[in-house]
């Protein structure tokens, strides 16, 4: 009996620790390493920064750390512009994703019950192919002599090839395509739970279907809208592959800047500083979301 309650206590103590352990090991520790590198100076060495951490000279190590890289970020407006452009592209993409994703999720939630699990499987299906390959495929579609141009010229809608590849439009198309499941699934989850009689009640009380959609469906789908938007917006801000492959050299995004600092300039400390900056930008919306959620919970226990 005693033993049993001991193991019970042990497991009940350990189970909540699992996520903390995971986050500590794979998020907090790497974060601290990146933070430390961001405070270091670049060096032509292996690794390419100094000082290198050493217990023997802890005071010398700490005194060598400084905020120079962050100062540089504020001085060169390239980083500011890249950040702004990333946030803008991510925001526009998220709105586009909502417009594309909502009807899909709504249609799925309204589909006969026996079709729903198949539809969910189909939404997830693209994940079976490598993300990289799918983005490369878009090059073939969007390039001037690609499938899209051919199709549009074929039906006589346009007479000259259109420039889409290597513009911001290609980035939007790529992001919307690649992130759609992250928008559709949380939306579907909330819409599917929604009680249809609520819409009937709204109609019965004199609200047109269009108004009922805005006054009933959308507010009740809000948790899914917020979750889907965050799931798309956050990774989209730091997106590197899509702007690099589809956006051409003109498209400025912070993730790309980070990549070039790391691999082209081999300036690990500056790249780390960019990474930290990116993290701060992304933490803000999450905190706001949590705040909103907490207030909602308070309002409706």
């Amino acid at each position, binding site marked *: 009996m005693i033993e049993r309650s001991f193991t019970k206590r042990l497991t009940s103590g350990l189970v909540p620790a699992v996520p903390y352990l995971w986050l500590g090991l794979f998020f907090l520790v790497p974060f601290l390493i990146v933070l430390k590198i961001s405070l270091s100076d670049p060096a032509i060495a292996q690794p390419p920064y100094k000082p290198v951490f050493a217990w023997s000279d802890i005071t010398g190590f700490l005194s060598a750390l400084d905020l120079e890289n962050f100062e540089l970020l504020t001085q060169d407006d390239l980083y500011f512009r890249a950040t702004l452009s990333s946030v803008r592209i991510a925001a526009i993409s998220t709105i586009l994703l909502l417009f594309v994703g909502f009807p899909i999720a709504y249609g799925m939630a309204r589909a006969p019950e026996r079709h729903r699990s198949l539809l969910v499987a189909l939404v997830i299906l693209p994940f079976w192919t490598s993300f990289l390959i799918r983005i490369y495929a878009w090059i073939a579609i969007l390039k001037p002599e690609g499938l899209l141009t051919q199709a549009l010229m074929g039906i006589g809608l346009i007479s000259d090839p259109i420039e889409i590849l290597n513009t911001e439009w290609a980035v939007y198309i790529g992001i919307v395509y690649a992130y759609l499941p992250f928008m559709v699934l949380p939306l579907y989850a909330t819409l599917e739970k929604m009680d249809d009689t609520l819409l009937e*009640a709204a109609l019965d009380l004199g609200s047109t279907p269009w108004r009922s959609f805005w006054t009933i469906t959308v507010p009740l789908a809000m948790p899914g809208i917020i979750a889907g938007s965050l799931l798309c917006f956050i990774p989209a801000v730091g997106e590197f592959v899509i702007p690099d492959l589809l956006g051409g050299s003109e498209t400025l995004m912070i993730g790309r800047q980070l990549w070039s600092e790391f691999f082209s300039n081999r300036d690990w400390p500056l790249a780390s500083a960019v990474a930290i900056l990116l993290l701060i930008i992304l933490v803000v919306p999450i905190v706001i979301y949590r705040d909103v959620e907490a207030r909602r919970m308070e309002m409706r226990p």
Partner: protein
Amino acid sequence: MPPPSRQSASVGAVRRAFAPWADPDAKPLIRFENVTKRFGEAVAVDHLTLDIFEGEFFCLLGPSGCGKTTLMRMLAGFEFPTEGMITLAGQSLEGVPPYRRPVNMMFQSYALFPHMSVEKNIAFGLRQDGLPKSEISDRVGEMLRLVQLEKLAKRYPSQLSGGQRQRVALARALAKRPKVLLLDEPLGALDKKLREETQFELMDIQHELGMTFVVVTHDQEEAMTMADRIAVMDHGRIVQVATPGEIYEQPKTRFIAEFVGDVNILEGHVQGQESGLWHVKSPSAEMPLTIDDPDEVLHSGQAVAIAVRPEKMVVQREKPGPEAVNVLTGEVWDIGYLGDWTVYRIRLATGEILRVSCANISRFVESPIDWDEQVYVTFAPGAAVILAE
């Protein structure tokens, strides 16, 4: 005691001055004309014709799947008839969507908007009409007073009890002052005590507002208590439309007799008619049974069922005299003491079990009837109804 003469007798104890259905000149508010509704192959409502009058408290009663909910949903505009026509105040409802009908519904699940406070829920319909803000808040206040929820105006549905939610749903449906209020199993989710209280409250509210109420229910007690008239439905058809008293005392078919209240059914064959009374030979009784049901048109030898309510039978230990009619002999099979009533289950020689209930009018009973005793069950000719098979 001789049975009262047929002319002065009224079926059921309740008398009502309100009876527009008896007036041939009265125009019905709602009219179903030969309405059929099919879902694929299944027929939910089958060539149904029905009139409902203004100010009526009308109940659609029937077992689940009888089509009563479909009938109500057609009135609300969520379903449209496959054939036939529905008119409201003389105007056809064909093609009129739910949001353009002067009809509101209280849903079985209440369907309160979870993201809106009580106030906002009640105001929802009024806001769709674009009423000025001051009028909306007046009307909401009035509704909150009507259902006694003034103190809970700012609460959310999740913070209310079942009974409170039911009131919000009622207030929301009443707020627009519809011509007709539809109530789908309005008391289904409440516990027994609350249900009884709310029945009377609903009747009071209906009376106060003078509105037409159409209630769907499968609970016959609920229908009996509240309704001016009841339509009993079965398999998409209306079997009988009548006052609660008529439904109970003068059921048209065996289905109604058995669905509404408890009933004992004795099978037999008509022997003939004598001074207005029918004689029926039944294997359950030694002597032919005598039944006072002059409205029935029967012929000799016809197979009939005789329906007698348990409270209209008397159980006794002493053998009745030779002048007594309708005597059945059996033994006590079971006794259930319910406080206000005692229910005897009496087994006849044919193996049939009769249910006889007896009001406990005194606290003291000298030598009560006991299990396995040989007893006699009698009933008056006016207590029974003949149902043609």
